[in-house]
């Protein structure tokens, strides 16, 4: 069995330096459109009409992006003379709703137990969550632990639009958690229903079902964005924006 030990040692450390340093490796994030002043000249309607989820809106002369709805379809970027501004980065997590930020506080800063619940996710969000405990991200080094039971969990990670069939299991998982507890909604589906909801079979995100405190936009949010959300929930990262931008201005078509 020593060959495995040697192999592991030989591989060396692959883990990202985030959050101490910014991760600059290419391909860690798809990026996203950014709210910006419209400088394209002509009518911005062509750009706005390209957005399939109504994430783009117009406020005066400003193109406004509803992060909760953006699904990185690149339709506002590719094949347009005046594309939307696209930003790199991954520190996307924010507080949901208008209330004051309610992190779990420093007491959980060194040891936070997380239960992950699939609310009908397509698999990409779950795959990104799974990467968290793999060598490149290794959240255990930050004191975050995945637990198999909600009874041990301080934080509930929910992905997917919450299908009707999963509403009850999700509620039960939430109720089984001891207080204080927080809920982190992962991905566009969990925030707004994404491309699936609301419909006859699924809802418009987690907050319809249980109170959600933090949200991570993205389809799927890259692992670094999820780490940002975890850090946020225990006040180890400052709130970049006070809450998720977007008041559902655009209409879903």
């Amino acid at each position: 069995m020593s060959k495995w030990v040697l192999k592991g040692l030989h591989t060396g450390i692959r883990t990202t330096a985030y959050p101490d340093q910014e991760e600059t490796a290419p391909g860690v994030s798809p990026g996203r459109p950014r709210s910006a002043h419209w400088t394209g000249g002509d009518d911005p309607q062509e750009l706005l009409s390209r957005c399939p989820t109504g994430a783009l809106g117009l406020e005066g002369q400003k193109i406004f992006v509803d992060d909760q709805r953006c699904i990185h379809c690149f339709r506002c970027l590719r094949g347009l003379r005046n594309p939307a501004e696209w930003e790199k980065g991954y520190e996307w997590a924010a507080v949901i709703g208008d209330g004051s930020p309610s992190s779990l506080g420093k007491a959980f800063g060194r040891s936070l137990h997380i239960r992950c619940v699939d609310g009908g996710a397509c698999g990409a969000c779950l795959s990104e969550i799974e990467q968290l405990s793999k060598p490149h991200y290794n959240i255990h080094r930050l004191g975050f632990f995945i637990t198999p039971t909600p009874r041990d969990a301080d934080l509930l990670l929910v992905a997917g639009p919450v299908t009707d069939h999963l509403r009850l299991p999700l509620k039960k998982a939430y109720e089984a958690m001891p207080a204080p507890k927080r809920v982190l909604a992962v991905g566009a589906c969990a925030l707004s229903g994404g491309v699936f909801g609301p419909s006859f079979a699924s809802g418009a995100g987690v907050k319809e079902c249980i109170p959600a405190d933090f949200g991570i936009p993205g389809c799927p949010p890259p692992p670094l964005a999820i780490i940002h959300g975890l850090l946020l929930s225990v006040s180890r990262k400052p709130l970049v924006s006070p809450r998720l931008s977007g008041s559902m201005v655009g209409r879903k078509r």
Partner: protein
Amino acid sequence: MDRPMEPTKEWEFLSQESARRWPGQVRLRFTAGEKSCLVELSTGVLADLCTFLFLEAEFTLASLIIEEKPPDWHLRYIFYGDRGGGPIHLLLRVPQMDPTVPSISRYVHAADWHEREAEDLFGLTFEGHPRLGDFVLHEEWPEGVNPMRSSFDASKPYVHRELEPEWRPARIVQAPGAFMMPIGPVYSDFAESAHFLLETVGEDVIRTIPRFFYKYRGVEKIAEGKTIEQALLLAERFSGTSAFAHSLAFCQAVEKIARVEVPPRARALRRFLAELERFRHHVAAIAGICQSTALAVATSQAAILEEEILRLSGMFTGHRYLFGLNLPGGLTTDFSDDCTKKTTAAAEDLLKKLLDLQEMLRFSSSFLDRLEEVGIVPKERALSYGLVGPIARASGVIRDLRRTLPYAGYESVDFSIPGEEEGDGYARLRILFREAEQSVSIMRQVASSLPAGPGVFSPPAPQSGAALGWVEAPRGAAFHWVRLGENGQVARYRITPPSFTNWHGFHLAAEDFAFQDFPIIMATFGLSNAEADR
């Protein structure tokens, strides 16, 4: 246009057999251009003809598609096989006044879940089927509500009954100490939501009763009335880990309806991206298998490769899971020859590391002990369940749509289809390794001979019609049936994903093995619930 013609060589057997066995009862139509065969038949001959195709002609069931065409229901049974000549569509018309159809699943077991699904979602009755009811729709749905019928309004939330789950399937195992072990729907660390009841007498799992469709998002229903671009998002995102394959199948169906030819460069790039996705999927599945056996270093090694491929995909296309690339008519963006070559070189480098890992695993006895002769699916069972993809190929059913019904220019590609005979967990693992190797080889071939010309195209004008698109997705054969209405909007969309086909046969592998093998068998199947539930 459809015009009757003489059967081509591939279909002669069918016209001869039907003239001999069912004279005057079936009508065969062969479509020029698109290779396929349409058989119109009556309920009387359905079971006989399906049995003939499935058991004698060695065809397998691709899909069962139900369409509402007042005053009738149209049932389209699609089969495909290795004889060439494309898929065969059996079209059965049943009056809506009396929607009773003879069940074929007694003879064609692969149709079992298709019939159960159709009974639940459309309210059709399949006479002779032993287990109808409560399949896709769980107990909170009252009987008699069939969401796939056109009379059902899918736009607003459906008010369900508030019920505690009361699913209690009958216990078969009667022995001292026998009990039912529930697993799910929320279980394990990152597992997808699904529910399993294991009937056991201590150690051995005697029966596995799965319950799926917790993740039923009604994708086929909510696609109705949407434009092609809107529906494309659903096709791409209902299964995020095989997004490119499914969006490709959808685009190919739309392209067939609009009769557009995809230019060679886009077809080549589609092959490239499809293989990149397969490579990533297989590495992720290998990581899953290593994790299920708790071999920590190997898990980490495979997981490092998986993340490297995700980053490579992100670098190459902008999206780690290859979202937003396919468009009817081509791709949304072009890739430079240089970029494609660099990506291939990076993939080759990762493959080398993967094969190193394979060598190490081959000689790790503690690992092999957990996989060898565990979770066996014998070949005859794989055939009768119509299993697809790496799972079928590990059981000796060596069939791959890239070869059987070539698409996207795969006929010009040189690749081998690995096959194994044992049908156990280790055979499935070996298939994953060998297919990953083939995928990188295909990427290399594409990159070294990328045709010049445009790669980005404007989508074709919407046209009405219906067509079947298919791909060999990473988990196996996927079929997408798309019907566009007069306004160019989707009138009917039916997806038959490989996970749906293969979960049907999962119990074969899980039964008669010990409890602690269950997660390992599940990992060697590597299926997705999002893909199966839709």
